[in-house]
C-alpha cells in the first residue's frame, strides 16, 4: 500500500510539475547511459517551444555522450525551427565525433525527414 502511494505521489508530483496551461504541447525526456544520450520528444515541436529542444541539445553537447538516440514516435510533427535546432546541433556534434540516430519516428516525422533529406545525414527509423 505504501509503495503504491509513493508511486502515486511521484506521478502526482511529475504531473503537477509538467502542467502549465501557457506552456506548449511538447515535452522532452532526456536520459544518459554511459556514452548514450536518449531523448524522447512528445507532441508538436514548433517555433514556440523549439528553445526547450535547444536547451536539451545543449545538455547533450556538454555531456560525454557520443551517440544521441532520438525517439520521435510520439512526436506528431516538427516545424522548420525545430529542424534548424537539430541541424545546428548535428553540425557541432559530429565535429566532436558524435552520432545521431532516430530510433523510432511517427509517420509524419519520417515523411518530413525524408522530404528534407535528413535521412542522408543520419539513420531514421520508422515506428
Amino acid at each position, binding site marked *: 500500500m505504501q509503495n*503504491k*502511494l509513493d*508511486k*502515486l505521489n511521484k*506521478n*502526482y508530483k*511529475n*504531473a*503537477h510539475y*509538467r*502542467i502549465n*496551461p501557457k*506552456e*506548449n*504541447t511538447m*515535452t522532452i525526456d532526456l536520459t544518459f547511459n554511459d556514452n548514450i544520450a536518449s531523448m524522447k520528444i*512528445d*507532441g*508538436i515541436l*514548433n*517555433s*514556440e517551444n523549439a*528553445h526547450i529542444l*535547444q*536547451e536539451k541539445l545543449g545538455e547533450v553537447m556538454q555531456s560525454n555522450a557520443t551517440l544521441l538516440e532520438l525517439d520521435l514516435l*510520439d512526436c*506528431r*510533427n*516538427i*516545424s*522548420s*525551427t525545430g*529542424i*534548424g535546432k537539430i*541541424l*545546428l546541433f*548535428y*553540425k557541432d556534434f559530429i565535429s566532436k565525433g558524435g552520432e545521431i540516430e532516430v530510433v523510432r519516428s511517427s509517420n*509524419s516525422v519520417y515523411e*518530413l525527414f525524408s*522530404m*528534407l*533529406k*535528413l535521412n*542522408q*545525414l543520419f539513420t531514421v527509423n520508422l515506428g
Partner: protein
Amino acid sequence: MSNKAKILVVDDSIAIVNSLRSILGISGYDVDTAYSGSDALRKIHMKEYDLVICDIEMPGLSGLEFLGKVREDFERDLDVILMTGYLEHDYFIEAIRLGASDFIRKPIDTKQIVSSIRELIFRKRNRDDKTEFFGHLNKANFCFEMPAKNFSKVALSKIFSSYMRQYFKVGSKVLNELLICVDEMVYNAFIHGTLNLSLDERALSHEALQELIELRLQDPNINQRKVKFAFVVDNLQQNIEISVEDEGDGFEYQNWLKSVKKGQFLEIDGHGRGIAMLYHLSDKLSFGKQGKSVRIVKSLVSSESSNA
C-alpha cells in the same frame, strides 16, 4: 456513420478493461481500449472519441499525467473520467484542478459510471451543435489583425487549433500539418517580416533572442507594424485557405520557390526549410505583395500533398 458515442477505456488491467468494455457495450456505446497512457495518447490523436475513461495508477504515463496532456492538446474538448482504487484527497483535488470530468472509485459501480457517461455525452452533444452549425455553412471566414507588440503574448497556432477542434471536424493528421503550416507562416511574418531578424540573430539562445525582440519592439517603426492572419474554411470545396500578411520589407520568394520545387532543401546552415515545409504540407502555396503575404490551400479530407 454510427451515432453511437465512442469511448476509450484505458487501464493496465486486462480484467478491468474487459469488464468495462462489456458493461459499456451493453449500454450502447462504441468502446475502444488501451492498456497504457502512452497508447491512449496515440489513439486519441489518431481517432475521434467522445469520452475517455482512464485509470490513475498505471505504469509509465499515469492517469494524471495523461489527463494533463489531454488538457494541453485538446483543452476542454475531450472529457476524461478518472478511476482509482484510492480516493486520496490530494489526488482528487489535483484531478479536478487538471480538469477531470468525473472521478470514479474502484470497484466500479455500474450505475454510477453509466450515469456519469450519459451526462457527459449529453453535454458534449450540446457542444457539438456549434460544430453542426458550421457544417451547414458554405464558407466560414475568420480574420485577425494583431499589433507586433502583442505578438509574443499570444500562441496563434493554439488559438487556431482551438477553433478547428471546436467548430470543424478535421482529422488529427491534417490538423497537425495545418498547425505546422500556421507556425511557419506566422513565425516568419513576425521574426523575419516584422522584426527583420537575421539568420544569425535567430540562432541566438532563447534568452538572448527574447531580449533582442524586446529591443526591436521599442522601435516605433516596428512596434506599429501589424500581422494579419486569416483562414477560410470552405465546406463545398472541403478545404481550408490560410493567409498571413506582415508589414515588413518582403523578400525574393521566386528563387526559393524554384529551389523547393526542384527538391533542393537541405543546407545545414541555410534557410528556406520553412518554405519547403509549406510546399510539402499544403496543396497550393503562393506569395504576394513582394513576399509580404503568404497563402496556402489544403484539403481537409486527405493529407495527400498534390502540390504542383
